[in-house]
């Protein structure tokens, strides 16, 4: 095991994508599971670290030891059970690495965990795919599991939770818990988890975990829940994941589409119409006029930006979605054509592409929006407050309340004099509202506005954190959602699972005791 004891102030191990800078006494890099157990038994405080692509400071340490899982980067095997095929991964394998492995069909290079699984997978003519697309493909799968990552495809396929078959976790006393779904189930709200010294009884929180919307706020609980689910979305506060099985879905050819509309609100309404129709896209993403204008401006400087044709002048908003390229496609397009007519648009006001390289361009176009915001703000303010660029919301609401939430974004942000653009997962009632921060004053205003909007999202039956997690940045929202009693109940689980508060202190909640 490698130990770095001199952790410089600007160490990459003490920062993640939220750009909060932490500090650590040492960094441990375990080579194998025995090293992880040794670290857990010897270190009083551990912050587990993967690719550090998180958005909320979950892997940012405030003292203690960083446990970097960077050596756990192998795909271990493939297997099959009644549900289908799965891949066993170590936690530092990234989403991109898994996707590339699947695309190259390298199954035979791995051991079959069940009889002939690798051969069967290699022989399948249609292939497979991992349906969770958390946008950040460089994120580690261990991190994805710890955060229950989702993304646009959650619209159809659900979040990471729905694709995890098995986890192997080093618990707080060094015991290795190796469980698959069905091995341990709660009785009501009581789970019994084995440790070295015997079974510990875990009293789960009594609150209702909101599953009607995309939600990663607080600890996931439900009656009779599976113990595997306790670790998914737990933000690493109960143990170190050293291995997991992820199910794959049968692949099917897809076509990517962008339809352009003449008003912002048309895209909201059309997305609702699509959800109410028989058309079931793989996901539904939104661009408002501000997002399209930012892309247009960036393309003036660099025509190669996004690699797409010019956005039509008339376009004030757009919807982006994939459809299966099968027998349903013509019917879906005809239904879409009828819906578009309501907004004075037609199937000619669109782009589509089905080759992999074209579909990748569509995704690059979608992902270019946050980048354009960075560039826009950089141009606006030059070198002032360079560390502050934007604040992205991560709130979800039930689809039928989305209009009200959009009105709240508009009124609250305008009341603070803040500029913003909207894009993202409109199909899940979870558009990203990116607040543009020109200076530190904007930053302060945005923080206040964010709290107001988080409260509003909860009031509308939604969640203040749909997919980014709570980490250390948003701990106040756990209490906002579940009240002090709910936080105390999470703390109670933590005390049973990790009485010495070794793992990821400061993540998900704060408890003064």
């Amino acid at each position, binding site marked *: 095991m490698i130990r770095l004891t001199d952790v410089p102030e600007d160490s990459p191990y003490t920062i993640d994508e939220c750009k909060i800078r932490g500090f650590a006494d040492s960094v441990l890099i375990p080579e194998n599971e025995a090293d992880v157990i040794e670290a857990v038994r010897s270190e009083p405080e551990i912050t587990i670290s993967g690719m550090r692509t998180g958005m909320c400071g979950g892997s940012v340490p405030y003292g203690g030891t960083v446990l970097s899982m960077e050596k756990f980067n192998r795909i271990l095997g493939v297997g099959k059970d009644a549900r289908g095929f799965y891949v066993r991964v170590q936690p530092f394998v990234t989403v991109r690495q898994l996707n590339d492995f699947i*695309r190259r069909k390298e199954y035979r290079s791995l051991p079959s965990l069940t009889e002939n699984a690798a051969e069967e997978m290699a022989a399948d003519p249609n292939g497979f795919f991992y349906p969770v697309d958390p946008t950040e493909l460089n994120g580690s799968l261990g991190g994805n599991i710890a955060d229950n990552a989702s993304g646009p495809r959650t619209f159809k396929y659900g979040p990471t939770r729905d694709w995890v078959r098995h986890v192997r976790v080093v618990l707080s006393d060094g015991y290795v818990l190796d469980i698959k779904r069905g091995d341990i189930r709660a009785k009501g709200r009581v789970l019994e988890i084995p440790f070295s010294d015997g079974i510990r009884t875990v009293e789960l929180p009594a609150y209702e975990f909101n599953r009607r919307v995309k939600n990663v706020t607080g600890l996931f609980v439900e009656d009779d829940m599976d113990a595997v689910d306790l670790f998914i979305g737990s933000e690493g506060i109960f143990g170190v994941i050293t291995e997991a099985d992820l199910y794959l879905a049968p692949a099917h050819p897809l076509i990517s589409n962008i339809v352009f509309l003449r008003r912002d609100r048309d895209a909201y309404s059309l997305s609702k119409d699509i959800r109410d129709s028989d058309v079931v896209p793989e996901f539904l993403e939104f661009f408002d006029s501000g997002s399209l204008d930012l892309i247009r401006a960036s393309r003036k400087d660099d025509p190669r930006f996004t690699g797409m*044709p010019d956005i039509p002048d008339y376009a004030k908003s757009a919807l982006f979605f994939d459809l299966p390229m099968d027998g349903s496609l013509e019917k879906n397009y005809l239904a879409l054509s009828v819906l578009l007519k309501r907004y004075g648009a037609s199937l*000619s006001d669109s*782009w*589509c592409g089905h080759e992999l*390289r074209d579909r990748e361009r569509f995704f690059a176009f979608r992902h270019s929006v946050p980048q354009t915001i960075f560039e826009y703000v950089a141009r606006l303010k030059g070198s002032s407050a360079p560390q502050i660029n934007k604040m992205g919301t991560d709130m979800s609401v039930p689809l039928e309340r989305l209009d009200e939430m959009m009105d709240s974004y508009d009124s609250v942000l305008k009341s603070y004099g803040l500029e913003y653009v909207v894009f993202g997962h409109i199909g899940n009632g979870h558009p990203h509202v990116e607040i543009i921060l020109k200076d530190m004053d904007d930053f302060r205003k945005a923080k206040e506005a964010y709290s107001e909007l988080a409260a509003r999202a909860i009031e509308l039956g939604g969640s203040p954190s749909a997919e980014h997690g709570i980490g250390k940045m948003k701990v106040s929202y756990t209490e906002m959602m579940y009240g002090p009693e709910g936080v105390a109940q999470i703390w109670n689980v933590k005390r049973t699972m990790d009485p010495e508060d070794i793992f990821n202190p400061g993540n998900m909640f704060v408890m003064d005791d």
Partner: protein
Amino acid sequence: MRFLVAVKQVPDTTLIDVDENGNMKREGVPSILDPYSEHAMEAALGLRREGDTVTVVTMGPPQAESALRRCLELGADEAYLLSDRAFAGADVHATARTLSAFIEKFACDCSLFLFGKQAADGDTAQVPAETAQMLGRQQFCYCTRIEHRDGGFAAVQDYGDEIRTCIVPEGSVVSVAEGNMNRGLPSIERFMKVSAMEVKTLDRIALGLGNFSVGMNGSRTRIVKSVNVRSERVGKVTDGSDPAKAAEYIRGLL
């Protein structure tokens, strides 16, 4: 006017890895319309005016139809797939022979015959020139721009060390080296229209070619072995504390 574009389907070379023996790992790599073919398509579509048509053709296995459909999506009006087991293993000569036969029989009235400069997998850049030679038509290779001029055409050719602008007579063969940096995308409406369009398939008999004119039989080259060549720069370092000595050393290397 009618424009003919000869295209090729290739593996997406940006996704190909090479194994330790230097062989391409094609498993899981999708086939695409060759990027240079796409430039030729763009050039043809740019030249097309009201009433003009663009015809595309490729030689390949049945699955090469998807490259032709991509051309139709981009705006081509009709497509021909030259497909026959006997065409397999064709080198540049046999390929040019097959395309020439097609042109003489089905497309000899075209105002221009456009090709990509080369194909991303073969990289020979020979097919356009050989086709022009077989058809007895003028050839203009490595064109970076082509436009209408004085009832005919003008093209800019880039030979690397020389750029020249030429008057291109109607009926010439042109190979296109550059195109729009952002490739086109069809609308959903166009995609649906193309789904209903037919790709005409022609075999060896339809082209009136003998068995020994096409494919492996009609080829003049054979690939016996392919070797992964790695070139390595051998650096030499000299102590520069005495500039005169160092200069002498470097002079000795020249």
